[in-house]
């Protein structure tokens, strides 16, 4: 199924590329763009969506461009790649992937866009990281690689736009933020709703005081939760012969995760049901908890208390419906739930105060309490992908060396909060967290769940290892 979907996407994307190329040829040169063998001036549109216009900012000659490399780009990463290619500040030079099909797909896309054959392919990401001419990275591997790859990128001195969830554990969250700070690189996680109008508006209401005294921020977590015993954790698919590493490198696909025998189902059917490979609650919480922390002005800390309520534990170890009530030190509540939303779209958030409330989601629609209706913007109600704006902010921060909205520190704190909530749900009991000590209080089992040991030979180079 996943393969079929991918094929369709590639075909449609190729068609969009061809159309974009024709449009570019007809349109002629774009003002402000460097002459010569630069990128074509029309970015391809996303499959099934309307065309995306060229993003031409300033007058960037080729030698001013930011040279990008990509690591692990498919699906969501291709959407990010399209936005990058459409920006005149960017030249995309190389791709690293453990799948030959993915390497070829990205090279083909990039070369078609630039009308050359220059995109270099690597099987091993470390070879790409060693290239001194590459300034920045687009990293869109699966969850299990995000944390370690971010650390490698930082240690190589490269800025990065990296998909979420950013880290598989509390310890890895801190370690990646430590490395980004230590090496002074610019980090933007793929928490693109931080640059989406409806969410910005809702967060702005909460932060401005127009909701009165803030009481609670709600985060939609959407999916069922895997636990230590959840599906995939308690079984291994039947072993089948490993492919040639040049075609698909199973050892590197596993990366820092625990070893298990090869079966194509893990890579082809998705990773969601496998606790070993997936950041579970953080699939959506990495978006919605980050927004909630932003709204509550709690981006650099975490709640101190986490109490699961009403979890429905299924026989396969999944928790299908749940609410996790969390509390910040100042008394404001953070409520994670995967039910009872106002149908405003995926990744919903709701912020409640003494003088009103606001709720929004991916539909772009915004609902507020009756007393705040006059504040509703006329622009609301349009669903759109804010990735272009999010990437644009990242590129500006590369120049200015300032932290973007989804920088490593705020990402780490949102991830720590989400992991702590997930741990409380797995243990099905209230836990208390000390943000300063980075540990649960009086709960050794919860503290042991803060980390996941990396499989050899992978390692994190970090101070935050035995917090």
């Amino acid at each position, binding site marked *: 199924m996943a393969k079929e979907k991918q094929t369709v996407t590639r075909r449609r994307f190729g068609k969009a590329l061809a159309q974009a190329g024709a449009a570019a040829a007809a349109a002629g040169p774009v003002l402000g763009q460097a002459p010569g063998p630069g990128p074509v001036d029309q970015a391809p549109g996303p499959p099934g969506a309307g065309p995306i216009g060229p993003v031409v900012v300033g007058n960037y000659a080729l030698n001013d461009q930011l040279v990008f490399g990509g690591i692990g780009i498919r699906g969501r990463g291709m959407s990010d790649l399209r936005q990058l290619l459409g920006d005149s500040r960017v030249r995309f030079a190389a791709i690293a992937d453990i799948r030959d099909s993915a390497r070829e797909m990205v090279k083909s896309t990039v070369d078609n866009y630039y009308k050359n054959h220059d995109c270099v392919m690597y099987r091993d990401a470390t070879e790409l990281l060693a290239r001194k001419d590459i300034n920045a990275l687009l990293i869109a591997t699966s969850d299990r690689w995000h944390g370690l790859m971010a650390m490698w990128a930082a*240690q190589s*001195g490269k800025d990065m736009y990296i998909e979420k969830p950013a880290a598989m554990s509390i310890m890895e969250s801190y370690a990646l933020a430590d490395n980004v700070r230590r090496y002074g690189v610019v980090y933007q996680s793929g928490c693109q709703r931080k640059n989406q109008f409806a969410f910005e508006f809702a967060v702005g209401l909460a932060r401005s005081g127009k909701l009165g005294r803030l009481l609670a921020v709600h985060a939609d977590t959407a999916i069922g939760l895997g636990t230590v015993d959840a599906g995939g954790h308690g079984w291994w698919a039947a072993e089948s012969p490993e492919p040639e590493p040049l075609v698909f490198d199973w050892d590197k696909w596993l990366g820092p995760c625990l*070893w298990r025998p090869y079966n194509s189902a893990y890579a082809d059917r998705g990773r969601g049901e496998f606790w070993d490979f997936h950041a579970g609650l953080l699939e959506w919480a990495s978006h919605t908890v980050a927004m909630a922390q932003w709204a509550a002005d709690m981006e650099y800390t975490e709640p101190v208390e986490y109490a699961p309520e009403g979890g429905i534990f299924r026989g396969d170890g999944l928790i299908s419906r749940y609410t996790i009530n969390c509390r910040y030190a100042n008394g404001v509540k953070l409520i994670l739930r995967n039910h009872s939303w106002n149908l405003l779209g995926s990744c919903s958030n709701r912020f409640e105060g003494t003088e009103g409330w606001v709720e929004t989601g991916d539909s772009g629609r915004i609902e507020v309490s009756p007393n705040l209706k006059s504040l509703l913007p006329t622009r609301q109600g349009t669903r759109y992908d804010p990735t272009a704006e999010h990437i644009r902010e990242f590129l500006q921060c590369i120049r200015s060396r300032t932290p973007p909205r989804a920088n490593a520190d705020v990402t780490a704190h949102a991830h720590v909060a989400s992991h702590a909530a997930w741990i409380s749900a797995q243990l099905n009991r209230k836990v208390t967290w000390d943000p300063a000590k980075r540990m649960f209080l009086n709960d050794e089992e919860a*503290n042991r769940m803060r980390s996941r040991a990396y499989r050899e030979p992978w390692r994190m180079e970090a*101070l935050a*290892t035995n917090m």
Partner: protein
Amino acid sequence: MEPAKLLALVKDPNSTVFQKAIACKKLAFVGGKEAVQPMAALLSHPQLACYARFGLEPNPDPSVDEALRAALPKLKGRLQVGVITSIGVRKDAKALDAVTKLIDDSDAEVAGAAAAAVGMIGGLQASRALQAAFDRTKPPVFPVVARAALLCAEGLMASNRPRALEFYTLLSANRMPDPVRLAALRVLNAAGPAPPGAKAYPPPTGEAAEKDQSGFLGRGR
């Protein structure tokens, strides 16, 4: 499942690799001192070593450190790398001498893991060990030594600031990898002004200065 039953699965020679793996994973969260030796016995198993380390690393019992130290000289290659890494994660200072020696191992993966572990263990002795390794290591181990030293210097800032700044100064030298050098310079800049007697980068002289009619370059205004 009760810890005792999980432990029985790990010990049972008739248990499958799968059963032992799952048992180790669960013992990571609930295993006590009695779980340490049975899991340590799996550190030499090609597939189960990672599960054993997964089970051992978060266990706070000091016998874990003893078991990892005991396993260290008995292993080679990736399996030894795994144990070195776990020692680093646990910051076991008692293993510092043994791990430091492995920075000179002929296997670059082992040597790199050892350097990284010394950096994570940290402290004054670790800083001296890494400083000594600057002159006798080459790529691909040297960059790891430099990163480990950066980590070590950061850890020293709270306990021994003068030594930390001295170490950062060494790490700001031209021979260091660029990311490490720049990181060290940022810390030194934040720590205070350049040391007394430090000279500014030379202003333009000769023809370049002659061409500058504004008086801006070289002469100031």
